[in-house]
């Protein structure tokens, strides 16, 4: 079997006395959409932050393409090809949409202080290229018309998309999506599902954390279920829906498996 793109081994993370992530072994094969679900407080966001480098695990390791990246700093992780979005949209509000996406080009460009100050030709070229690529991404996502508007003026759903575009601008191999459907209505969620599928078709592996079951079941190839920091189930969506442990954790002990699934 081909080596997974991302793997965590025996990942542990404590907060004071609470164990938020306990011995988690997650594998994300290349080219799939994998979802991580679980009730509130299950440790999904902590797991996310551990992978993205925002926090460091107390035990265990994170491997990307077989190489350990445990406790690497977020900017180094982005440089490797792992991009992430945030639970609450974190755009650079005072910058235009285009500028936001151009920041996404940062890990794929190089000109530094000196080249910037002296406005050297390689800086011009790089800027032109970045701008063109950013505009192409915006075009692709139907956001071209907003390119020169200040990001904070956009409606919420569009801001979400801009954050996507920005993450895609980093040309990631792996995209970490933290509750991408949060705050979206069903039409927007459906659009989002289509977008994620399209992204995956282009070769970007996606790891999605979300509560929205319809989104998760529709688009994921595999689902990983967390409860109280531990994995309780893993497999294709249909199988997870029928898993008694998962049902118990979400709905309580009294509920029988749903016959409609």
């Amino acid at each position, binding site marked *: 079997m081909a080596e997974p793109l991302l793997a965590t081994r025996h990942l542990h993370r404590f907060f004071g006395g609470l164990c938020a992530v306990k011995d988690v072994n997650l594998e994300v094969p290349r080219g799939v959409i994998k979802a991580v679900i679980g009730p509130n407080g299950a440790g999904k966001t902590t797991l996310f932050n551990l992978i993205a480098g925002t926090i460091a695990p107390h035990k265990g390791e994170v491997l990307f393409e077989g190489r350990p990246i445990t406790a690497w*700093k977020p*900017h180094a992780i*982005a440089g490797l090809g792992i991009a992430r979005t945030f639970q609450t949209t974190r755009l*650079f509000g005072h910058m235009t949409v285009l500028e936001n996406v151009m*920041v996404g080009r*940062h*890990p794929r460009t190089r000109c530094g202080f000196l*080249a910037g100050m002296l406005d050297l030709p390689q800086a011009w070229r790089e800027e032109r290229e*970045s701008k063109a690529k950013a505009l192409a991404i915006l075009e692709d996502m139907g956001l071209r018309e907003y390119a020169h508007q200040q990001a904070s003026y956009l409606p919420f759903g569009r801001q979400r998309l801009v954050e996507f575009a920005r993450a895609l601008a980093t040309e990631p191999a792996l995209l970490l999506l933290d509750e991408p459907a949060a705050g979206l209505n069903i039409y927007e969620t459906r659009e989002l599902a289509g977008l994620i599928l399209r992204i995956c078709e282009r070769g970007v592996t996606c790891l999605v954390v979300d509560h929205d079951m319809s989104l998760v079941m529709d688009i994921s190839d595999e689902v990983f279920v967390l409860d109280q920091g531990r994995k309780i189930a893993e497999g294709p969506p249909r199988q997870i829906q029928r898993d008694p442990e998962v049902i118990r954790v979400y709905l309580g002990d009294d509920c029988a498996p749903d016959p409609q699934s």
Partner: protein
Amino acid sequence: MRFARYLPVIAAAALVVLLQVALSAADATYYMTQLTMSTYYVLVVIGLCLLMGYAGQVSLGHAGFFAIGGYTSAVLTTCNLVAWRDTAVIGGCRSLGLVVERQDLYGHTILCFSAWPAFFAAMLAAGLIAVLIGLPVIRLKGHYLAMATLGFGLIIYRIVLGAKWFGQADGISNVPPFPLFAGLQVNGRPAFRVENYYIAWTVVLAAMVLAINLVHSRVGRALRSIHQDEEAAHSLGVNTYRYKVCTFVFSALLAAAGGVLLTHYNGSIGPSEATVLKSVRYVAIVAVGGMGNLWGVLLMGMLLNFLSLRGVFGTYDDAVFGGILIGIMLFAPQGLLRAPAWRRVLHWLPGRRHG
């Protein structure tokens, strides 16, 4: 069009020339002395504007870097190395032209460093110290960073005030003029007024061009992103720590350059250039000019420094700057020129997109 960003530079240059012509015609060239001095102070606030407005880091100790620049250059160009004239090191320096002989105030011949090596030494010192201080301190946030930079400024002040090498309370005087090239020199004497006015403005406008380029570049964008949401910037591949330290060092170098040039212009430097009040003054100017607004900061820097140097504020000098800080922070935190009433007036000017 890319070159739109340089239009204000050209406009400023034109104004500078106009002003000079007007003053010369009105036989009021003595104003140029204070204008020139203000210009060198503006170098400090340009760097501080990049640090505070773009990278979002406060520094209450920038007068310290100004002093490092000025004092280093002053010491090197006034220390008498005659006692060591026969050593290999000094002999080598002499043959390289780094050390020269000149006449001091009393007609004695003394041996000291010439201005250019002193300048580079000053920049090196400021840069090294900025790295040394910046590396541990930039990790701090908010009032911790403010206090750390304040502490740094205080240490520099204590050193220049207390050490004999730096002349203690009297500072260092008899600093020679700084010969640039083609016969131009940084010299405060009346005969050189016009020449120095242009030298100062050339330096400042060059610094503005560098700053404007930086702001419009990939780095400038990264800095703005750091300022607006550091964690998001970090997750997008921006090495936030390194960029903040680099900006800190660059702003320190600008401040030191201002220090060197002003010291040679005035022919002296004293501990009053390293006080906390001076640092606060620079912060106040950046605040009132608008945190990310280079031209606003330049304008306010010129205006306030000029008024202060001409004594318009009298004994209330420091109080004025303190009051400005309070006023701006309370009523116009984006800077005076960005207060809503002004915005309508000013928004047609080019190159003002950045906020």
